[in-house]
């Protein structure tokens, strides 16, 4: 691929109009993204949304049918392969190999010097509580421990870019927290971390930027706090005494959901929340709570998927 297209700023990763289909199934549709260097970026979406396909294309394991992906200064992942650590979805380990041998092998095919990586591997094994399992066969480890070995495998050659596909799967909450801490530390060291997940809470705790994918299409993308601020507008939560059903008829209300004394409203764009307050006061409704809510990522996602006018059932193919 040409290095001449200088669309990327220094270390940013840039997707330009990327599409990929497998036979009839369009896994990714015209995706354009910018993944900033030194940040944690999440590909989010339900199963089969196209997250893994995005990561595989990012890594040049498969090539897009259309569009281009550039890493640092226009290079492809293949050019930078030794500086990338990749953790595939599901376990990607030789079951019959010893943990230490395996980790050394993974570093070696990344061109690392085996002698140099050994202390680093030991350090990580210790950190993740696997120091005494270095000589164990992979197949003798629990699922969670295998996942940790796999995780160390992506770090053994000290890459500057980490690509992690569902890194938390199979881990208990304590280990999840441990991995989260490590990822945050790695970001501090200036590493870029890209990961995919279908669990929004995880992304919320970690990500600087996100891309919400649904049916191969990006439905929301950008810095997480900005997205929340932007898309959180117009969501009102009320706690009150007396019926507020009359609000449904107001032309500034987009959606209305009530459980009697608790009501959630979505205002139309640019509508002033004060209109609601005035209307409630006019009707002498007693208000216990009036809150402009900051939505969770999950809510944002649900809202976006619903409004994309497609039904929310994901494809069955896990592309």
């Amino acid at each position, binding site marked *: 691929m040409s290095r001449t297209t200088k669309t990327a700023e220094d270390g940013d990763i840039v997707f330009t109009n990327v599409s990929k289909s497998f036979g009839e199934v369009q896994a990714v549709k015209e995706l354009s993204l910018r993944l900033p260097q030194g940040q944690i970026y999440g590909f989010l979406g339900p199963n089969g949304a196209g997250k893994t396909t995005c990561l595989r294309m990012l890594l040049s*394991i498969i090539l897009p049918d259309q569009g281009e992906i550039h890493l640092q200064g226009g290079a492809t*992942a293949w050019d930078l392969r030794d500086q990338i650590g990749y953790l595939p979805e*599901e376990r*990607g380990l030789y079951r*019959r*190999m010893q943990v230490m041998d395996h980790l050394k092998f993974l570093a*070696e095919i990344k061109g690392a010097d085996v002698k140099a990586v050994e202390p680093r591997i030991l350090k990580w094994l210790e950190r993740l509580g696997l120091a005494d399992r270095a000589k164990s066969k992979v197949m003798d480890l629990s699922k969670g421990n295998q996942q940790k070995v796999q995780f160390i495998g992506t770090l053994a050659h000290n890459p500057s870019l980490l690509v992690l596909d569902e890194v938390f799967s199979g881990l208990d909450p304590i280990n999840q927290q441990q991995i989260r801490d490590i990822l945050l530390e790695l970001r501090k060291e200036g590493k870029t971390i890209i990961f995919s997940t279908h669990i929004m809470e995880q992304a919320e705790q970690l990500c600087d930027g996100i891309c919400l994918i649904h049916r191969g299409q990006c439905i929301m993308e950008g810095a997480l706090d900005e997205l929340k601020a932007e898309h959180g507008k117009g969501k009102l939560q009320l706690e009150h005494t007396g019926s507020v059903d009359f609000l449904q008829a107001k032309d500034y209300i987009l959606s209305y959901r009530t459980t009697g004394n608790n009501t959630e409203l979505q205002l139309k764009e640019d509508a002033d929340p004060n209109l609601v307050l005035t209307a409630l006061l006019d009707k002498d409704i007693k208000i216990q709570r009036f809150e402009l809510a900051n939505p969770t990522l999950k809510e944002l996602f649900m809202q976006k998927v619903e409004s994309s006018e497609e039904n929310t059932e994901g494809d069955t193919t896990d592309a």
Partner: protein
Amino acid sequence: MRRIWAVARRDFIAVVKTKGFLLSLFLTPLFLGGLLLLPLLANPGGLSKKTKKIEVVDPTGQFGPVLKKVFETLRKKEAANFEIVATTHKAKDSKTWFKKSKQLLEKGDRFALIWLGEKTLQLQAPSKVIPSSRPAATSKPNHASKLGPPSKGQTDLSRILQIRAKNVNFIKVAKLKRTIEQTLTHLRLAQLGPVSLQVMMIQASSKKLVQMRNPEGKIIGKSQFMKRFMTGLIFIMLLYMTIQIIGGNLVNSVIEEKSSRIMEVLLSSITPGQLMFGKVLGLGAAGLVMVTFFASTSFLGASVSKFSLQVGNLVMFVVYYALAFFLYSFLLAGIGSICTTEKEAQQMMAPVMLLLIIPAVMNTQILQNPEGVLAVTLSLVPFTAPGAMLSRMSTMTVPSYQIALSIGIMFVSALFILWGSIQVFRIGVLMYGKKPSVREVLKWIKPGSSSRPG
């Protein structure tokens, strides 16, 4: 290169450490040895040095002692383990004696019964049809003009020498029959007087006047054919065993890598070509260990059993072996990459392995007509060339242009298969679930369908 080396080393260790590899290392020579010994073991008589007793019922009293002497000489010369218990009886008693002896035969105390008719030794043509088997009281020796085989119809048993044996060990019985025929001939000829001695001498010397030689003039011994047959066969067996085991491992490890998704990690670090080459190299090394082990054990075995193999074409052996190994390994790696389960892979491997044994099945035809269309074709088709060519080489001097052509074809095919397999490999290894159709696979092989640089 270091990465190829890393892959090769990993795969080598992965295979060599498996129990299957170690087992096959030790069991295969045992199995092959067993295969050679099985016929002997199944028929213990053929192996035991115990002498077999043969009862001779001889009304003439002339035949038994002579036969005994013949077998004694044979026993000293080539360890034929027959012992003659000759009994001479009057013609009228022979039936009773025969009945007695028959019991011995049935009990297994005797290997065979020889019942000489009282007129067997006479140089007389039989009278046309004799209604009863009971011999006529007297008969005079007749003229040479009447010599001839007994007429058809009912056989005159008084003229027949019967060998009755329970054990149908064809080789032994045939040997016995031949010896007895010769003895009978001598005894009958002797009746003609001094002439017979000359006849016998001519017969003996004539045998020595005929010699089988190869085109270079080297004398071909009796056992040569067997050696040749075995040389070709052992080569194919060796190739088959190693490709079956090593190729099976190759396919399985590709499938393991695919299903465990480590393939993605590998392919984000090295090219499919590097990966494939590393695997074939590592497994090839494992194969080398295996072949060296097999070869040394069979050499040992051969020197112990005095069954010498032809190793004159050792260089050719190595060249063809290496070419065949790479050819088949590359092909199997391609196959492994489009399969999802080991079972599926085994089904796809079966026809490939069949190609490998075609020369073994055709070995006899190849040896009988090493310059025939079949033999030449088989020795030029890359998949059958190794076995067929080695077989031909053991029988004849194959024209060097044919050898060069066959090696060239194999080399080019191996490269082509390597290239094609890499094309299939780099797409196939990332396909999960659905098995691609033949048309799809062919599409992958076409240039320009690359999924990645490198």
